């Protein structure tokens, strides 16, 4: 139904067919996909009802960062179905309002304690590059990943990267991801998938719920590379199924081969909005318009030019006013803005779309660090609360390092370099002779940020870096 059959860049290997029960009826899924994806592919948009007003709710982030896709699975309430792999025969039910209490006591095995040298939370470009750097220097880290695959958001970046050769210019994100994943596997780095780190205690112990068991990871060093989450913006009907984060749409298309919709409104003309719009066109989806509240397009000109060539209009000084629909988006109303970002009455326009994608920014995923007592600061230029750290990416807790979007919203190339820096800092702290590699990585990062798009980041960094 919603399967992408032909794609210019990707080919989809679908696993064997299995069946599970949704609201008592069998649903066919592919082995290896998540419950939410299987449901969506089968045309199911509504996953739950909101707690108070019982409004229909669907998936939003598709990577386990929000609570929009929570359902009851095998009698357990509040399961994030977007990151839960399907299993033969499982029962999945909608939550009508808050979930009912669990139907029975689940027995878990006793906790597993692991003593590690370095533990890495998150396996996106930052986490993987840190792991590779450590492994290359004889230190085997342990990786914790809450999604069913390694690679973070890199596994859905089908576009080619810019920059110099060192930063993988000209390569597609998906290819960089598979190379990195292969290196990690080749080096024998151990990793846990489908495993959520839920607490970080006294700078020493990480609590992880790894599928069905509790892991207590006691490690000398930690690297937090937990990435970021997509922002929701306020407008009427923003909770309707069919309103997705742009990154979620990308996950659906490029990881699972599923069309988020047929006719799409993209909100936000930064790089994410432009690139995802282009990828939607590649997947055979009709992008009705891209709108941008600012008077100018935020992303690179080349990306904008690509989608314009397809005849997709980009309306600047325009925002979304409301989403209309019964069980999912059926229409979107957009409106022009004046110079003060106020709506201009009479400029409303309705678009026939079934999907609205929000590419309106990201928030660093800092909750684990904040809970553990790492000193944080709100820096708007970096996307929200971020940890204070020095140029070696060490936080206010000794032996706790950060890398990637958790330090402030940037891109995969900087995340890869930050992963290296964190790893080299730890190696150096361990007494290994990596001073040159460390300082090279640091200067390379500042070079990468020296362009006009890095100015904001550099400005923001001044707020959070200490000596």
């Amino acid at each position, binding site marked *: 139904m919603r399967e992408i059959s032909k794609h210019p860049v990707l080919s989809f290997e679908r696993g064997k067919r299995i069946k599970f029960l949704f609201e008592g009826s069998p649903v066919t899924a592919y082995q290896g996909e998540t419950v939410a994806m299987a449901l969506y592919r089968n045309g199911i948009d509504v996953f739950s009802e909101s707690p108070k007003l019982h409004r229909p709710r669907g998936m939003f982030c598709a990577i386990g960062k929000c609570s929009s896709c929570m359902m009851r699975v095998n009698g*357990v309430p509040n399961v994030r179905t977007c990151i839960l792999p399907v299993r033969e025969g499982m029962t999945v039910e909608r939550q009508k309002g*808050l*979930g009912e*209490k669990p139907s029975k006591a689940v027995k878990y095995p006793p906790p597993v304690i692991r003593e590690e040298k370095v533990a890495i939370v998150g396996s996106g470009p930052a986490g993987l590059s840190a792991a590779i750097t450590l492994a290359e220097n004889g230190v085997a880290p342990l990786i914790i990943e809450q999604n069913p695959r390694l690679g973070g958001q890199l596994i859905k970046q089908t576009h080619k990267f810019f920059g110099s050769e060192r930063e993988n210019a000209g390569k597609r994100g998906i290819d960089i991801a598979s190379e990195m994943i292969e290196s990690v596997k080749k080096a024998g780095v151990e990793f846990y998938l489908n495993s959520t780190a839920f607490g970080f205690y*006294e700078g020493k112990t990480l609590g992880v719920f790894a599928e069905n068991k509790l892991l207590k990871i006691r490690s000398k060093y930690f690297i937090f590379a937990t990435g970021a989450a997509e922002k929701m913006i306020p407008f009427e009907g923003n909770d309707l199924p069919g309103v997705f984060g742009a990154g979620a749409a990308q996950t659906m298309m490029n990881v699972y081969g599923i069309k988020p919709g047929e006719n799409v409104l993209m909100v936000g003309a930064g790089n994410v909005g432009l690139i995802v719009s282009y990828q939607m066109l590649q997947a055979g989806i009709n992008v009705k318009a891209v709108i941008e509240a600012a008077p100018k397009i935020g992303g690179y000109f080349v990306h904008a030019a690509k989608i314009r060539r397809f005849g997709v209009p980009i309306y600047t000084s325009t925002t979304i006013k409301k989403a209309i629909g019964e069980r999912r988006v059926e229409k979107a109303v957009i409106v022009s803005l004046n110079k003060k970002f106020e709506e201009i009455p009479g400029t409303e326009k309705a678009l026939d779309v079934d999907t609205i994608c929000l590419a309106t920014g990201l928030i660093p995923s800092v909750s684990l660090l904040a809970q553990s007592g790492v000193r944080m600061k709100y820096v708007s230029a970096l996307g929200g609360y971020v940890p204070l750290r020095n140029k070696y990416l060490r936080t206010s807790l000794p032996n706790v390092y950060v890398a990637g979007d958790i330090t402030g919203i940037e891109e995969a190339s900087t995340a890869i370099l930050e992963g290296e820096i964190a790893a080299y800092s730890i190696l150096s702290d361990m007494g290994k002779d990596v001073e040159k590699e460390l300082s090279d990585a640091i200067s390379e990062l500042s070079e990468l940020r020296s362009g006009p798009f890095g100015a904001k980041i550099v400005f923001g960094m001044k707020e959070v870096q200490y000596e």
Partner: protein
Amino acid sequence: MKSKDVVIIGAGITGLSVAYYLSRNGVRNIAVIDKSFPGSGSTGRCGTGIRQQFTTREHIVLMRESVKLWREWETSLPLSVHFRQGGYLWLLETEKEVSNFEKYVKLQNLFGVESRIIDKYEAKQIVPDLDIESIAGASWCPTDGNAYPFDTVEALKLALKNYGTEINAFEEVVGIETRGGAVKSVITNKETYSTNLVIDAAGFGARKIAKMAGIDLPLKLYRHQIAVSEPVKVFLEPMIVKGELYFTQTYRGRIIGGTDLNEPETESLQSTERFLEKYATELLSVMPVLSSLNVMRQWAGFYVVSPDHHPILGGTPVSGFLVATGFSGHGFMLGPVIGKLMAMYVLHGIMYLPEANNLGLDRFKKGKLIEEKAVIG
């Protein structure tokens, strides 16, 4: 320099409640000062419980009155505090414990609290999800309950706003001036308040504030931790207590509770793994069906503990410097009655409940301590 009739230090439930009863009785030229936001201390960190099942006359009577006031707050404050009388079900493991609690229940009944000892099957009827295998019986008081701390703070804030009483948040007291053994002014990092009357309701900062006036309060700070689960539809209204464990469900659906680690005094408010493990183990032994619920958050707060686990209320050797502190883990539940007691004391010079006369600071000098056996979590 501002001139104030009363300066209240601390905008937790105690300070706000005192300000509320003073305002209600016509005293409006008040400043409530807090170094952070209202409810940022022990109030916002508390376990929400409100009980009358205590073991001393002072606690029982004060809490009986407080429950009455909680019920009144629910209707008279401009916002709901979500006071719910779901009862406290105190699970007892041994026959000896049961016979001890029989004595407490007698005392509670004597002072008008309708608690009673029940057998484990009745306990199971009240809370069907209980595992009663290791239970000998329970002490049950259906009029105990809980309220929501943040809603309570918001309700009191709005009530004070309607009276025109000012709350000065993010303002830190740095000194208290006395002359001739009497309070003259309160100095903060932003303002100097000239006043003859200061009420120290600063919770875990109360000792430090009192020191500024030259008074040594015999208080110790103990870290206590709490965890909440993700929300599920409300199915549990009573507060369950067993040994050091306590838990209930908030009206928003989260299972909230804690346990005691018997830690030494500390200044740290970090959450620990040891707490979560002990809490989860004890919780699941009482209610195994919760095993697959996720923990959403855990945090720590301070019990501000007096030598006999009872509040320290009223005057001090410095004229015009009053204290309302030392609640030893019961500050939230006592909030309404303490506010009324202190306001009446300010206005009329007497404690309107005679039991409160036993809770003065001078009792420690006189050696008239009152021992409370029922301190949990």
